[in-house]
């Protein structure tokens, strides 16, 4: 078999030599590139910092602007929550770290104080509404997205806070460590549409479930998880199940 550079000891040495040279050249090149990148990053970073500092107030106050800024950060691969210090880059540049943590604490407050009523599952809109009320700020200053980001910051606490998509653009926040199976997610989605009320019949008609499947899902939520309440006086004559987190509370 013919080898590149010929055969024999001399050829071997020659090959070694050229490999060393390539390696040198390559590290030389990448060093230059890394330096260049570093410079670029520094430049970029200071530009971003300048931008963020200039618009700090607007970022803090205007949810639409905050959203756009976060999208920009995400698209260039900067995670504003990650950083060398506690609270990350937000904290360093924007003082938004505290804001984010504060929001987290308020989310926990709302989740815990409504838990006895809703079994640890709260509808996103309701959570945003209650947090907004807690902060006594104008409607719209806290967005769903702010809440989702704050919940991410709660992750290290291991308290099991999680955002669940129940379909149809509806989201719920779970504040207890509980497995939510697929059937339960369906029940929750229907409850959302029905102002909180679900029944075996509804699941059979809407989803084509067997009665046994509907019953099992509802009984589990009722007895095992405490996620819904039983109503034995329903007009239909059969038991109805109510999911408090999907009911429209006006208080």
């Amino acid at each position: 078999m013919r080898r590149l550079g010929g055969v024999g000891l001399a050829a071997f040495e020659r090959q070694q030599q050229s490999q060393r040279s390539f390696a040198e050249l390559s590290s030389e090149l990448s060093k230059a590139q890394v330096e260049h990148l570093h410079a670029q990053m520094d430049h970029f970073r200071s530009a971003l910092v300048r931008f963020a500092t200039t618009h700090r107030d607007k970022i803090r106050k205007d949810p639409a602007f905050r959203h756009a800024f976060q999208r920009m950060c995400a698209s260039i691969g900067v995670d504003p929550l990650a950083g060398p210090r506690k609270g990350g880059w937000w904290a360093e540049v924007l003082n938004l770290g505290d804001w984010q943590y504060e929001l987290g604490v308020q989310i926990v407050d709302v989740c815990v104080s409504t838990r006895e009523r809703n079994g640890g599952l709260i509808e996103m809109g309701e959570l945003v509404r209650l947090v907004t009320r807690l902060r006594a700020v104008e409607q719209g200053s806290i967005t769903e997205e702010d809440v989702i980001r704050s919940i991410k910051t709660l992750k290290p606490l291991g308290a099991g806070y999680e955002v669940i998509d129940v379909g149809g653009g509806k989201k719920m926040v779970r504040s207890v460590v509980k497995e939510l199976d697929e059937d339960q997610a369906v029940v929750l989605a229907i409850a959302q549409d029905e102002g909180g009320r679900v029944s075996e019949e509804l699941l059979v008609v809407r989803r084509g479930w067997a009665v046994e499947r509907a019953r099992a899902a509802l009984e589990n939520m009722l007895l095992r998880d405490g996620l819904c309440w039983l109503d034995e006086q329903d007009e239909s004559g059969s038991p109805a199940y109510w999911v408090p987190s999907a009911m429209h509370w006006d208080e």
Partner: protein
Amino acid sequence: MSAPTLAPRTTPSGYLLPSIHSAPPFFTQQPNPNTQAVVTEHWTKLILSYARHRRLFMLRVEDAEVAGNDWDEILRNEQIHRRLLPSHLEHIITDMVEKNRAVYEPARQTRSVLLYWRTPEEWAEVLHGWADATGQLNTILTFYEIIEPPVPSQLSGIPMTLLRKAISVLAKTSRAQIISVADGEGVRLLPGNSSR
């Protein structure tokens, strides 16, 4: 039929019902003990605050059986066609007695309670404060004069059992002496440190 908004509502007697009173399942005894504990707590608060509003002292399981009594406004919700069933009310009453928010009255039965929207200790302070404010410390008052005073007071219509309990609370700290009078019993309330 679905998607009702659960809002607080004012009754004809002027009581503001909490929004949970419009929730259909609130009237069903829950099979999940944790959920029922929440329901029981809500009912207990509702019963005591309504009793205070209407100055009702007694609650009976029968009150949930037939309409047409003082408790209709809370034991029933005609708008959503729900009512608290007697067995559920009995469960709530049992819990209230266990938590000293009511006592069986008369004793040795479990279907009728005297409600503690004020505890005997709180009634004791009300009684002492009333006697003090109306210049009746150190004088002998008959129980009748306390229960039906010429000028209505917070104590007007207080059940005898509750009054006796309140007086014995005061007697323990030497702020009341029970005295026999011609037509039954009386009490002499004495000045003393109300904070104990």
